């Protein structure tokens, strides 16, 4: 029946990070951020599929998949939102996908069908690519 986890988002992230770091210390004698990229991806895959059980680690209110879902959506938000939120530095994500950012005015472009938009993005604070 919708979101009923008894945590607010910050608690979800802090709890998940703590549990996963603890698990990584046990399994690999390293914290998550110290693992090689391939190992990090393997851990994340397992968390996503609840193959690393948060319940087994003593956490009954939050599942690994729920933490992963929150983490992934926050990561996408940071990656694709305006740079003023701290991610998408230099609007690199927008440049990569061809999104003009905060230009927000296309009266002459809306009529031009199937023409790649030629201008780079701008941000809310006025950065230009």
């Amino acid at each position: 029946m919708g979101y009923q986890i008894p945590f607010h988002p910050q608690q979800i992230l802090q709890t998940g990070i703590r549990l996963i770091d603890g698990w990584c210390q046990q399994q690999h004698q390293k914290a998550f951020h110290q693992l090689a990229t391939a190992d990090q991806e393997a851990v994340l895959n397992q968390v996503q599929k609840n193959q690393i059980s948060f319940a087994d680690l003593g956490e009954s209110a939050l599942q690994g998949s729920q933490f992963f879902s929150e983490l992934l959506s926050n990561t996408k938000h940071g990656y694709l939102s305006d740079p003023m939120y701290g991610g998408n530095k230099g609007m690199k994500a927008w440049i990569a996908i061809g999104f003009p950012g905060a230009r927000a005015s296309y009266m002459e472009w809306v009529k031009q069908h199937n023409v790649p938009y030629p201008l780079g993005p701008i941000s809310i604070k006025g950065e230009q690519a």
Partner: protein
Amino acid sequence: MATVNKEEVDVVVVGLGWAGSLMSIELAMAGLKVRALERGGDRGYEEFAYPKPADEYAYGVRNKVMATPAEAAVTVRYNMSQTALPTRKWGAFAPGTGVGGSGLHWTAVLIRPTPTDLKLKTYADQAYKPGILQEDMRIMDFPFSWDEIEPYYTKFEHICGQSGNTGNLRGQILEGGDPFEGPRSEPYPLPALEDTLNNTMFVKAAKKLGYHPFPNPSACVSRAWTNPYGNQIAPCNYCGYCSKYPCLNYSKASPQTAVMDALKRMDNFSYEVHANVMKVVLHDDKKTAKGVIYIDAQGNECFQPAKIVVLSSFQFCNVRLMLLSGIGKPYNPVTEEGVVGRNYAFLSNGGSTLFFKDKNFNPFATAGATGQMFNDISPGNFDGPSLGFIGGAKIHSSQATGTPISTALPKGTPAWGTGWKEGLEEWYGHSMKISITTTCQSYRDIYLDLDPNYKDEYGYPLLRMTFDWKQNELKLQQYLKGIVSNITKELNPDSYSESFLPMDAHFDLTKYVSTHNVGGAVMGDNPRTSALNKYLQSWDVHNVFVPGGNAFPQNFQANPTDTIGAITLMAAQAIKDIYLKNPGPMVQA
């Protein structure tokens, strides 16, 4: 702490969204002293001047101008055997708040239902053999004729600068519009918005398959417009930040652009923000209201006396206020006695997303209402009776937004990591949608009441919603899947993904559908089955009027705002013409 008594006014308006602002201006123009109380904050233009709204994260993701669950949560359960749980995070719907309400940030599709939609019970009785439709369906006719309501649709559409192609002008069918629409007394105020690439592709395919597409009727205005109140609305610049966003260009008809400037100039109108109405206070005989109690911005309890009370908060907030105030008898789904809470309905959507490697859709260059649709699949226009369900859908290719966080990716794209980044770079801007927006009928055991467990911060029970899909709507979804599939194949994309409700679907609270919740305090001819008469006047408390989506006895496929505007304007006119001269029930049951 003592209650602060305010000076009496002629009209207190609870909630300053579309319904509240229309009631306020119409009654203030008639010389009445009107005071509006708005739970949320003020929303002046400086708040949404460019570039502030060009921010997908704030508005699209974090619902910046919506109510928070802490302010407006309801509890939800599928059926009467379950315990309802609170909406701790918005999902399927997300109500607005603040001056302008949802009208500030809506998608601006401004469209009428058909005359058949408004007399659905009559149509059902005549077109369906007994026993075809499920026994627990409780659809009703709207209590007015097309001829009565049509001038008010026209009036609201002129207030909004509705932009589109006329289909039926006084009985004459015109090329380029909806041939199925009810006759209009006047053409659309403004021409249609520009078509985007998805529009033209959809139109070609739909026409080939025999359908009758026309541009989504739009309240993102296509040309500079001065409305009957003297407010000016600027031509849309297709900024791509529309649905869920306040308009950065003064181009979207909203209470702000269409009403508030004129309204705020009137000396006999005033409003207070962060004024949260708790209940309506009735006289001892319960036949009239004295005024409303609210908590002001400083936390004081205040009493606002008034001769007329208008409840124009959001649909389910209106129903909750009626229940908390004892206006009308609460609905009992077992005995079917009572009226407040009955006939709650929602809607469903779905469709396919089509991917084309060689097409640049430039989805960021778009207006909220951008799209083309057809109304061939609506009650009375196709053979629903032989298919065993009643209802229909707008079938459309719309492009309300082109922002990247919400972009679709083809099936098989990894959900994260390098593969996801590559997929996003390859496919952003290369997809279009074919969507359905369906009707939703009303049923005996789909209803609203007060929750027995959960309360708001003031100790009052939250509203409880008992809702799940019925077989009628699920059969409709499966039928529509076939139609959308045909159009998809006609367009021949590189790949596509589909989303339709299966026959065993439960209501998914986590995925956004639309905030077109309707019903719960419906208008009708019969006080045994409706809470309000045709003028939105409570059958029980004659100086209380409840304009909003709550008045619909079931949901048609057209977006609700045009009808909410029309019934509100009709109610305001009746108050001016009839009620003020002779306060009392305006309709004999």
